[in-house]
């Protein structure tokens, strides 16, 4: 076989030597791909000219198998969607079911949902910040982040008995009331959490190396963020002030005083900083919610074991740690949904990877991927 050099894509390096474009396969099992993402990176020297994410390595057919489950049986499956923040998919799903079946949720249940989901946001962002640290070579960040995350996971375990897959939010309320002294445990921990988070801020974001690695990497303009359907910290890091808790408010969020951190440069640094500041805001919401919560029923009365909403469809979305997570349900009147579609923020944000990674070095590709914070349970479903 003869090689036809003219056929091959030769370019010239800076010193005049011919350079051939190389295709590097990153993943699906790679420590920096945050799961089972595979990226086909075309590199010119060290610079990525084209990055193509290949997804589907964790496609478990969740949207299909829920068609064989009753409405209550689906709740534990939604846990496995976004496994870093299981409460969100629970809540988004339950909101859709409640909208479909016309269920009114008691106030205490709404407060409990807000408290657990805001704690979950901190736990999820800790995972993201830890992996941002690990991507940039500061694995110590993971140890500090997991200190905070483990405390939240312990609180959840006390609440519902599970460390990761909670199955806590149910159609019509929550699965059980809080154990005695649970709110006091949270209130006695919030100051320590603030200290830990500000310590992480000084330790990592105050660090010359971290700033150098994160600033100017994966710059996303506000126009592109809106155009590509980005949401959550990815959109807010680019200066798009869009938070469903404020701008399409749901549950009892209007009763709380909190701010939405918005970045300006749209780079990996701003996205990570947005996540960090959101943790402070979540702690504020948790404290206000514990102050406002009153005794009462934690689950709506008269919800049948076998829900069979009348034919129709419903869509509802919440602000998860990754963006707007929506669930669309179609009912044909039977006890099983006819169709469930997950609008996953991680999937929409991951679509930005080819746009953001272009022109960066291969070592920055993992930072760009990490800054989008994808969770592949949710991307692949």
């Amino acid at each position, binding site marked *: 076989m003869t090689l036809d050099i003219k056929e091959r894509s030769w370019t010239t390096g800076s010193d005049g030597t011919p350079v051939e474009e190389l295709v590097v396969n990153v993943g*699906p*099992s*790679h*420590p920096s791909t945050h*799961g*089972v993402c595979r990226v086909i990176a075309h590199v010119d020297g060290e610079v990525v000219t084209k990055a193509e994410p290949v997804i*589907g*390595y*964790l*496609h*478990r*057919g969740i949207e*299909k*198998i829920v068609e*064989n489950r009753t409405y209550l049986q689906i709740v*534990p*499956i939604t*846990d*496995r969607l976004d*496994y*870093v923040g299981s409460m969100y998919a629970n809540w988004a799903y339950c909101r859709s079911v409640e909208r479909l079946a016309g269920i009114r949720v008691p106030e205490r249940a709404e407060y409990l949902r807000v408290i657990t989901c805001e704690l979950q946001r901190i736990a999820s962002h800790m*995972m993201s910040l830890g992996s941002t640290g690990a991507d940039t070579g500061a694995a110590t960040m*993971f*140890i*500090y982040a*997991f*200190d905070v*995350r*483990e405390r939240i*996971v312990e609180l959840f375990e006390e609440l519902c008995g599970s*460390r*990761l*897959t909670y199955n806590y939010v149910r159609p019509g309320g929550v699965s059980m009331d809080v154990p005695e002294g649970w709110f006091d445990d949270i209130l006695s921990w919030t100051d320590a959490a603030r200290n830990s988070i500000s310590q992480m801020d000084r330790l990592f974001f105050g660090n010359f190396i971290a700033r150098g690695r994160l600033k100017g990497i994966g710059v996303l303009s506000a126009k592109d963020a809106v155009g590509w359907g980005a949401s959550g910290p990815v959109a807010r890091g680019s200066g798009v002030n869009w938070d469903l808790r404020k701008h399409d408010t749901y549950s009892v969020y209007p009763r709380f005083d909190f701010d939405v951190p918005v970045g300006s440069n749209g780079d990996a640094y701003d996205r990570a900083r947005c996540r960090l500041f959101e943790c402070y805001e979540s702690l504020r919401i948790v404290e206000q919610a514990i102050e406002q919560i009153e005794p009462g029923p934690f689950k709506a009365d008269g919800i049948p074991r076998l829900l069979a909403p009348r034919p129709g469809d419903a869509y509802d979305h919440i602000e998860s740690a990754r963006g707007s997570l929506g669930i669309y349900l179609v009912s044909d009147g039977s006890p099983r949904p006819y169709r469930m579609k997950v609008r996953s923020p991680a999937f929409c944000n991951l679509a930005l990877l080819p746009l953001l990674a272009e022109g960066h070095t291969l070592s920055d590709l993992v930072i760009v991927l990490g800054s989008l914070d994808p969770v*592949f*349970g949710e991307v692949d479903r």
Partner: protein
Amino acid sequence: MALVDKLGAALDSSGGGIILTSVDSLADWARGKSLWSMPMGTACCAMELIAASFSKFDFDRHGTFPRPDPRHVDVMIVAGTITRKMAPAVQRLYEQMADPKWVIAMGNCAVSGGIFYYDSYSVVRGVDELLPVDVYIAGCPPRPESMQDAVFQLREKIATESIAPGKTRPHEFLLPVPGASSGGGEAE
């Protein structure tokens, strides 16, 4: 290993012996106390695997140090759902590990397919359809403590193994070997 192999071959005819027993116990001790692990984390269980290796649980103190490179490790911890698309990659990574090697199936998905066992069209029903599994841990996901317990159980299992030829586990290739006479077809 050459000397050990010769020694083993000399003694294997009589089914091992006093010398090999002491070599075995030395080898098993060395292998069991420093089980570097490859976290093959695909889904939810990966979170608990990470939790097991960082603050509070601190896996390293048992000699189980996570290395994401198959060439460095002794034990592959399959944590999470393995889909049919992922299966060739898992097999390939297992092939690349150096002998002796062990596999821990962590969580219900890796054990049997778990919650996706009944009606998912894309999930492999247990990683033992692909690889020889040594220790199974149930749970969805298992706690980090049970992960540590699995390592202790694996140590006990290693303590019963021998390095004598004929008694070691036969090495079999799961995927076609590139360059082999029969092979040629790439699985990926």
